[in-house]
C-alpha cells in the first residue's frame, strides 16, 4: 500500500494533538501512515511513542531553528520536497490555521487541488465537508494532483494500532524566501489544564447572558466538572467577558464536540455556524424564544445563575 503523509500537529506543552491521532486513524484506511514532524530540535523523538501507538509506520522529521523560527513557509518547502520524493497516496494536515497554511503553500508549489475542513475521506479520495454554518454537506474531490486534505478536529474517533516507526531525518534545505516571516517571540497565555477548544469532547460556552467577565467563573466551573473546554459567543467576547481565542462561531473557532452546553447564548446564526455540528447540545437561557432552543437536545428556560450552580452541585454529588 502506498504511503499516506500525516503532517503532525503538536503543542509544546501537551505533545501530539488529538487531531493528529484522528489523521493517523484515517490514514490507515487509505494506505500506510507516515508521520511528518516539523518542529524544534528533538521534536520527533518526543512524539515518536504516541505516533507509533496510533499506527505511524515511519516518521519523517525536519527539525531545528530553520523550521521553528519562521511562519509556515519552510515547513511547506520541506513537505513539498518529501511529496515529490515519496509520491504518497494522500497528504493529510490538520484543519488548523497552520495546517491550512502549509496546505495552501503545498497546493501552489505542487499545482495541486486542496480541500479544507474535511470531516471524512474515502479511499477513492472523496472528501466530505460541512459548509455554510453546518447547513450544507458537500462531497468533493481533488481533480488535479493527489488528495491534499485538511481534517477538521473531532471528525474521526482515534483508534490505536501499534507500530514501531523508524525515524528518518530530512535535510532542511529552505530558501531565503522561506525565511521572510520571522518569529521573534512566543508568549504563553491562558495556560491551564483545560483541553484545547477545537479538540475538546465537551465545550461549555457563555454568552451575553453571563453578564460580565467575573461571572465566567460559573462557565469555567461547569466546564471543569465535565472535563471540558470553555468557549464564548462573539457578544461575550466583544463585551470583554472572555478572550478572543475562545470565541466560537463564524469569526471564531468551529467546534464539534460530543457535548456542547450554551449558557446565556441566544443562538444567532453567527454562533450556530461554529457549533451546530456538535453531537449533543444543551442550552440554558432565560428567553424561551431564543433560537438556541431550536438546536438544543435539552433546554432549560431559566436564570442561568440559578440553574448552573444547581447543576454543578448535582454533578459533584454524583461524582
Amino acid at each position, binding site marked *: 500500500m502506498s504511503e499516506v503523509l500525516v503532517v503532525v500537529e503538536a503543542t509544546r506543552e501537551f505533545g501530539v494533538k488529538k487531531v493528529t491521532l484522528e489523521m493517523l486513524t484515517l490514514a490507515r484506511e487509505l494506505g500506510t501512515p507516515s508521520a511528518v514532524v516539523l518542529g524544534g530540535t528533538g521534536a520527533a523523538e518526543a512524539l515518536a511513542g504516541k505516533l507509533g501507538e496510533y499506527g505511524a509506520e515511519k516518521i519523517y522529521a525536519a527539525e531545528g531553528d530553520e523550521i521553528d523560527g519562521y*511562519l509556515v513557509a519552510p515547513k511547506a518547502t520541506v513537505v513539498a520536497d518529501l511529496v515529490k520524493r515519496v509520491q504518497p497516496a494522500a497528504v493529510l494536515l490538520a484543519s488548523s490555521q497552520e495546517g491550512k497554511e502549509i496546505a495552501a503553500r503545498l497546493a501552489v508549489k505542487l499545482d495541486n487541488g486542496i480541500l479544507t475542513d474535511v470531516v471524512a475521506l474515502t479511499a477513492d479520495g472523496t472528501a466530505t465537508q460541512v459548509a455554510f454554518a453546518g447547513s*450544507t454537506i458537500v462531497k468533493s474531490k481533488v481533480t488535479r494532483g493527489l488528495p491534499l486534505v485538511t481534517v477538521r478536529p473531532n471528525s474521526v474517533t482515534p483508534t490505536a494500532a501499534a507500530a514501531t516507526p523508524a525515524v528518518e531525518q530530512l535535510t532542511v534545505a529552505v530558501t531565503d524566501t522561506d525565511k521572510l516571516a520571522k518569529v521573534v517571540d512566543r508568549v504563553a497565555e491562558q495556560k491551564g489544564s483545560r483541553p484545547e477548544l477545537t479538540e475538546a469532547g465537551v465545550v461549555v460556552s457563555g454568552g451575553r447572558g453571563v453578564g460580565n467577565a467575573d461571572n465566567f467563573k460559573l462557565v469555567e466551573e461547569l466546564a471543569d466538572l465535565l472535563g471540558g473546554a470553555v468557549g464564548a459567543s462573539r457578544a461575550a467576547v466583544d463585551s470583554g467577558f472572555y478572550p478572543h481565542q475562545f470565541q466560537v462561531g463564524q469569526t471564531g473557532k468551529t467546534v464539534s464536540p460530543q457535548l456542547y452546553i450554551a449558557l446565556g447564548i441566544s443562538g444567532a446564526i453567527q454562533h450556530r455556524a461554529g457549533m451546530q455540528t456538535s453531537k449533543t447540545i444543551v442550552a440554558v437561557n432565560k428567553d424561551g424564544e431564543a433560537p438556541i432552543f431550536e438546536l438544543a437536545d435539552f433546554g432549560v*428556560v431559566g436564570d442561568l445563575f440559578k440553574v448552573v450552580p*444547581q447543576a454543578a452541585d448535582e454533578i459533584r454529588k454524583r461524582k
Partner: protein
Amino acid sequence: MNIVVLVKQVPDSGADRNLRTDDNTVDRGSANNVINEMDEYAIEEALKIKEAHGGEVTILTMGPDRATESIRKALSMGPDKAVHVVDDALHGSCAVATSKVLAAALGQLNADLVLCGSESTDGRVQVLPHMLAERLGVAALTGARKLTVDGATLTVERQTEEGYEVVTASTPAIVSVWDTINEPRYPSFKGIMAAKKKPVQTLSLADLGVAAAEVGLDGATSAVVEHSKRPPRSGGVKVTDEGSGGAQLVEFLATEKFV
C-alpha cells in the same frame, strides 16, 4: 506606503446560503451579497496606516459585475481607488486559480503591503494569503491581532492556541487580520458620495495575461461532486426552571452518559 486591500463579495452569512444545483458553485444569484465582514477590518487597518504614514489605499476585488456594489461600499470607508478583476471565465474558479489571478493583478499594482481579512465567511478556507505569498515570493503574516508599521518593517502579533506570537517581516508583504485588530469605521455620507466618483479600473483575464483555461470550472483543481442540505436539527426537550432546572439538566446529561 502603497497598500492594497483584498475585498471579496460574499452571500450574507446571516441568511440562508446554498450551492447551485446546476454547477455546484455558490449560489450568488439568489443571495443577498455583501462585503465579506472580515475585509472591513483590513480596510480599516489600511486607512489607519495611511493616516499615520501617508500613501494610497487600493481595493482589489475579483468577482462578477455585481461585486461593484461591494467595491463602492469599501470605497465609501475611505480608500482612494479600486481594481475589479471581472471576467465571465472566472466563474467557478478554485482557490488555487483564484490565487493565480490575484497574484497577477498584484503584480501590476506594486503594493508595499497587501491586507486582507483572515477568512471569507462563505468558504472559510483561509488559504489565500499564503498562496499569494508563495506565488509572489513575499512574506505572509497571518491572523494579525495587532500590526505595527515602522518604515519598511512590519511587526504582527498573532493569536495562537497557546498564547501569541510576535512575527516580523519587511515589505513587501501580505498581512491578514482578525476582527480583534480594530473597530471598522462607518462610511460617512460624504464618504458614500465621494465613493461614487472614485476610479474603479476593471481588468480582464487578457489584461492579466492569464489564460481562460487556467481558471473557472474547467481549470479548477478540485470539484464538488454532490451536495445536500443537512437535515435541520430539531429541538428536543425544553423545560422551564421551576426550582429543579439544574437537576433536570444533570439528569439529562446522566442519561446521555456525560456524568
